[in-house]
């Protein structure tokens, strides 16, 4: 009816904000909302500790020479319990220092997750954008390929690829990248199709902006959010799946990686040598947990429907 004035009284004009200010204000608001959730804060704290551990690894430990990503193996002190001198968390079957493995494992995990997530986000975003933005036959073909990729459970797919490539850290990265990009392509495509229908995109088109400019100015910034949420969660998920592959036996020999350490250490648990797999397993758990908590918090903060949860 004509009584719109009643249900929504006209707003007295507020001082005009620049786009940059709006963005800054929104970011601040978002940060506030994210930080208001205690579990998210716990997640953030864990992440910060993990990152600190990963980045400071060469400082807080003596890097193994020549390859610091290899466990330092003290063959004369195998299977030492925690609190042994020089081996705070004990040693593995191969005399590897568990503490070193835990710390450098964080670095390996950071390396793994950053590599996989950045590759998959970039590839997935580009492919999803092209599909969503151009549409038509190209979109069709790409999405059928995506469908095929999505028709295999991800761990099984990654397992098959890693198995064929052979056990190595690089191959785990590759296998995960091949498996994970699909999600982003799909999210991005759906977002672009949604955002494309907005009036401001039409407006930009009417003004005569070039397609590329419209994409970078109007579409990309407005569709990237779910991708970022997914990426946050995947920072944890990648490590979880990667460690699983490593546990099954697809990583490199002697590398300081949590999954490998759990796998090596499980042999001794029955004899009371719990430390070699407990600590690294716990790290995988905490790592994945932290990113899940933050991703969850981020998603809730960004999703108006779950406000006030």
């Amino acid at each position, binding site marked *: 009816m004509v*009584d719109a*004035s*009643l*249900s929504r*009284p006209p707003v*007295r004009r507020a001082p005009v904000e620049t786009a940059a200010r709006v963005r800054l204000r929104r970011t601040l608001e978002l940060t506030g909302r994210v930080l*208001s959730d205690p579990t998210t804060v716990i997640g953030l704290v864990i992440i910060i500790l993990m990152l600190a551990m990963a980045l400071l690894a060469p400082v807080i430990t003596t890097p193994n020479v020549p390859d610091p990503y290899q466990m330092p193996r003290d063959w004369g002190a195998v299977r030492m319990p925690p609190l042994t001198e020089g081996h705070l968390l004990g040693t593995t079957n191969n005399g590897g220092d568990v503490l070193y493995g835990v710390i450098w494992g964080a670095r390996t995990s950071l390396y793994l997750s950053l590599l996989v997530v950045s590759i998959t986000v970039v590839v997935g975003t580009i492919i999803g954008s092209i599909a969503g933005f151009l549409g038509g036959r190209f979109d069709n073909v790409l999405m059928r390929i995506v469908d095929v990729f999505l028709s295999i459970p991800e761990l099984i797919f990654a397992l098959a690829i890693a198995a064929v490539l052979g056990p190595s850290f690089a191959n785990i990265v590759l296998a995960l990248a091949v498996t994970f990009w699909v999600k982003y392509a799909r999210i991005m495509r759906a977002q672009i199709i949604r955002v494309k229908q907005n009036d401001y995109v039409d407006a930009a088109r009417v003004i005569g902006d070039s397609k590329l400019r419209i994409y970078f100015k109007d579409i990309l910034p407005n569709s990237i959010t779910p991708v970022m949420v997914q990426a946050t969660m995947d920072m944890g998920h990648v490590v979880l799946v990667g460690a699983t592959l490593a546990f099954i036996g697809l990583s490199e020999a002697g590398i300081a990686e949590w999954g490998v350490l759990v796998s090596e250490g499980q042999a001794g648990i029955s004899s009371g040598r719990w430390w070699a797999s407990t600590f690294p397993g716990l790290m995988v758990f905490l790592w994945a947990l932290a990113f899940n908590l933050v991703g969850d918090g981020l998603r809730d903060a960004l999703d108006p429907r779950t406000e006030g949860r």
Partner: protein
Amino acid sequence: MLTNLEEHDAIVRAPDVIASVRDLKIHFRGKRGMVHAVDGISFDIRDGETLGLVGETGCGKSVTARAFLRLVQTPPGVYAGGSITFRPRRVCDDCSGVGCRECDGTGRVAAHCPACGGKGCRTCGGTGEETVDLLSIPDAQMRALRGNRIAMIFQDPGKALNPGLTVRDQISEVFLQHRTAEILAAAGVSPNDVLLRRQASQKSRAFEKMLLAVPPLRSGRNRVDAALDTMVADALAQTQIPNPRKVMDRYPHELSGGMRQRVMIAQALACNPDLLIADEPTTALDVTVQARILELIRELQQRHKTAVLYISHDLSLVRRVCDRVMVMYAGRVAETATSQQLFRRPTHPYTRGLLGALPGRGAHRGRLAAIDGTVPELVDPPAACRFVGRCPDEVAACSRTDPPMVEIEPEHAAACFVHAPPGKAAATRPVRTP
């Protein structure tokens, strides 16, 4: 339940009042403080009348309406004070609800106060009628009133009907909750049949349902179902739905908006309630359908002499439908009057603004007068007129204290220092009842 003698007085003075709201305060716990959504309002609803409750979005009118059914979610809501007294009626003995002379055709008669047996006491304010405080009765008692004595029609029937249940399932729930004895009687089943009685009151558990599917017991169940179907069909027929037996089997998404609202109305009126709360019942409908639905509500209301609390932001509509109007602004009552009075002599500047915003009232076509500014935030508001800042006529006093309700003429009161100054008119004492 009632603690204040003064409150009794109000009810004593107006025996035809069915519900009475006194100094109702409903707050919401927000991140930045208490939001005073409803901040001390008082009014009465008289038996059989239609009271319009008008105001813009967020003024507290929907919250007020939900308070009658105690549907405000707590938390975050808080019933911060005040009372809502209500006099539930019972089914007329002489006509068992059909409507006779004894009950003036409504099928309902006053219920005796359980405390004094009708002699009149403090609990019932001397009326001898059962009187309850809706905000303090136990949950079970509240549930017995909901849908039975007080019913509600929601704004969007598309959302207020469960998409996963058929029309039959949804309407029959009302009967199952409140009319178990009648169902059993209609089905010719003894009220002592525990299994069927539990079925007819929606208490059956999974294993009982399985039992009832077994042949010897199934016939009883089928009879109950058949009786229920008849009641549902009758309720739907009341709303002039063609082919009620067919509509019953439909899911809400298979019906048009108007049909859905009819179903909603049938559901609300199924138990012949004393008070119907209609929360913008036509807002979500097409203009053409709106008129018919309004007509239907009006007709049913007159036939059953049901009191209606009609909530709307649409003044022109309110004028057509309501006997009396109450204008709310930011959790407070701004003005109350009969419909005629309000449109003839709007007193509160906010009411005037609202009327000015209506098309076709002095303004040129296409130019609607707008009220400047926005509704104030209701977080821990100071003692002052809420309209301060938007009011064209404000004076110094407006920002210092709350303006009291002042009677301007009979049935007409407003809260404004400027246009209804306390102590100026003959009836200058603050009034509670309009």
